[in-house]
């Protein structure tokens, strides 16, 4: 199993009447709610938490990309990952990911991921999302019906920029580049790639064809995800993929651990409620630009991953959220049982653990994280022993890594270059 401690980086100060007074947490969220000085502290706190979790045995720490979004203040995950690369070791940096259709030209992604891979000594796990409709279409102005074509072209360009040792010309529809020749190049020859998807057959096939891991990053939990992941595994079988390794799939799950189930409710329910009520308050008009999803996907009946339940999340109680699996919370044993159900039920080898929820303060987050790392994670390690050596979807760091901050002292410099002592 690969456990990644994942942080969405939510804004923590959305007002109590946010739902009533504001139409959306995303796209046209009121900038007056943002406080840069507060953000200074928040970014540092979130990066501290990511670094802290890397010391507890998580396989990876994860970041992602959203724009104009009150529950994800991370338009550039690469900036955060660069900071984390310097202050962590051994842990994978899971950047899930860069919305490659948004970069002009997309060689920028090839370059920045190569930089991250070099700085971190081959610890990058890369993600190539199409990006949500809110991010890609409404914030970044991409034409919905052309987004996927542009995405596919960007993918082809990035892969070739990594793999082709010689300069090449790229005559794409969206990118015309006469001299592609990126410096630096990534450490990893086969970059592990995870693709966030929302149920389209095209994305299933894209992952199967390229040996990429398919990630379902939902907030609605493992019970509702069953049909979607089953669709993926059916497709894996139908397409005669060489294996059905669980590492071909990943899933994001909100997890809160405490000493007892009761303590979990007492400690975390207000933060879970903040997340589901305020952070997911997305105006319906931004959920799914027409043309963004393919006709085939709509015909499967899979509604937009961001379309809330018809009557919203607002009425869901702690009990509902737990019973319906949106959130896995409770004592270590409760969480272990439900995680086992999730892992077996969905057949997923990669778990993106959403351990920071909404406006959760750092002490509670550390408490929950440590309990999960010490009392839950070890018991879930060997779920798929037959695939324990499958490393195709994970990073392969170099052996001897540089130690940040290991410059010689000024005295040593003086002695070495013959200056005065």
């Amino acid at each position, binding site marked *: 199993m690969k456990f990644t401690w994942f942080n969405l980086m939510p804004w923590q100060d959305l007002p109590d009447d946010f739902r009533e007074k504001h139409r959306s947490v995303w796209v046209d969220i009121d900038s007056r709610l943002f406080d840069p000085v507060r953000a200074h502290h928040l970014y540092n706190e979130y990066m501290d938490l990511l670094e802290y979790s890397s010391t507890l045995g998580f396989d990876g720490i994860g970041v992602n990309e959203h724009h104009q979004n009150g529950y994800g203040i991370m338009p550039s995950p690469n900036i955060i990952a660069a900071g984390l690369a310097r202050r962590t070791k051994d842990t994978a940096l899971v950047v899930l990911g860069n919305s490659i259709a948004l970069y002009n030209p997309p060689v920028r992604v090839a370059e920045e991921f190569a930089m991250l891979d070099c700085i971190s000594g081959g610890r990058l796990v890369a993600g190539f999302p199409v990006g949500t409709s809110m991010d890609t279409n*409404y914030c970044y*102005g991409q*034409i*919905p019906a052309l987004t996927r074509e542009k995405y596919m072209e960007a993918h082809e360009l990035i892969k070739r920029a990594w793999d082709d040792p010689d300069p090449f010309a790229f005559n794409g529809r969206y990118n015309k580049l006469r001299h592609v020749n990126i410096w630096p190049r990534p450490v990893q020859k086969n970059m592990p790639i995870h693709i966030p998807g929302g149920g389209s057959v095209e994305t299933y096939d894209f992952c199967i064809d390229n040996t990429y891991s398919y990630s379902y990053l939902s907030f609605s939990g493992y019970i509702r995800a069953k049909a979607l992941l089953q669709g993926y595994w059916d497709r894996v079988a139908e397409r005669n993929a060489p294996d059905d390794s669980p590492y071909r799939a990943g899933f994001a799950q909100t997890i809160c651990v405490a000493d007892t189930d009761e303590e979990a409710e007492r400690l975390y329910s207000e933060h879970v409620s903040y997340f589901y009520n305020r952070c997911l308050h997305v*105006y*319906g008009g931004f959920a799914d630009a*027409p*043309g963004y*999803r393919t006709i085939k996907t709509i015909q499967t009946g899979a509604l937009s991953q961001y379309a809330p339940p018809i009557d919203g999340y607002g009425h869901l109680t702690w009990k509902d959220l737990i019973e319906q699996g949106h959130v896995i919370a409770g004592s270590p044993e409760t969480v272990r049982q439900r995680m086992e159900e999730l892992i077996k039920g969905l057949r997923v080898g990669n778990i993106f653990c959403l351990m920071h929820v909404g406006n959760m303060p750092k002490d509670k987050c550390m408490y929950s994280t440590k309990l999960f790392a010490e009392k839950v994670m070890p018991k879930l390690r060997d779920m798929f022993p037959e695939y324990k050596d499958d490393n195709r979807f994970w990073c392969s760091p170099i052996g001897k890594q540089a130690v940040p901050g290991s410059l010689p002292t000024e005295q040593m410099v003086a002695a070495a270059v013959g200056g005065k002592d």
Partner: protein
Amino acid sequence: MELKTIKTHAVPVRYIEAGKGTPLVYLHGAGGIQLGDPLLAKLAETHHVFAPLLPGYGDSEECANLRDMLDFTLHTADVIDALGLKDPILVGHSMGGMIAAEMAAIAPASISRLALICPAGLWLDDHPIPDLFAMLPYEMPQYLFHDVEAGTKIMTAGVELSDPEWLKGFLVMNARQMGMAGKILFPIPERGLSQRLYRIKAKTVIIWGDGDKLIPPAYAHAFKKAIAGAELVSIAEASHMVPIEKTNQVAAAISKLG
């Protein structure tokens, strides 16, 4: 009034044909057009009307190869050629007006009579056009109709939101149609037309509902200013769906072209 199909270079095109008389080509707006459309019916009393559907509209085949404004413009010129028409009266509503204006600007010798009904295609910073692509269906009537209540009735006829199959059908239709429209309208319905309008040689009538809340009348004046000799017909108590709200007045204004 009949729905027919004609082959073109890009894709087979569905079109509505009706009436007899001077040939007139009508380009529909982003919402599409159906058999029985009142303006087509009115125009068909005096004209031979052809209303081609953009690929993906109604039951017509989609065409992934049409991506940008030039593709849309040349494709529509191909449709007119395929129909065997030469210099028909060219009429366009909203998105259709944008395409019609482009056609008249790109090939001024081929289009000598042009009617633009509240066309898209320009952008004025002082008069931002509401984002049609971020509107929920129930929000649309207030932008599209002068009589919002009557407009709501028109737009909600046959709507069965509680039926998942109906909803799926609606989402598919919306993705096909508005996905296509988005190629020239999203996120801002402007693709450089203002630089080309000076080329139009056609006798031009610009028709606008003076209460248009989607593309406000400031745009009528911008079009009038940019097209030499254009006449502006302003229609009272009408919004963006002026062809439905004031069918006879719109038809009369178009008939000034012959």
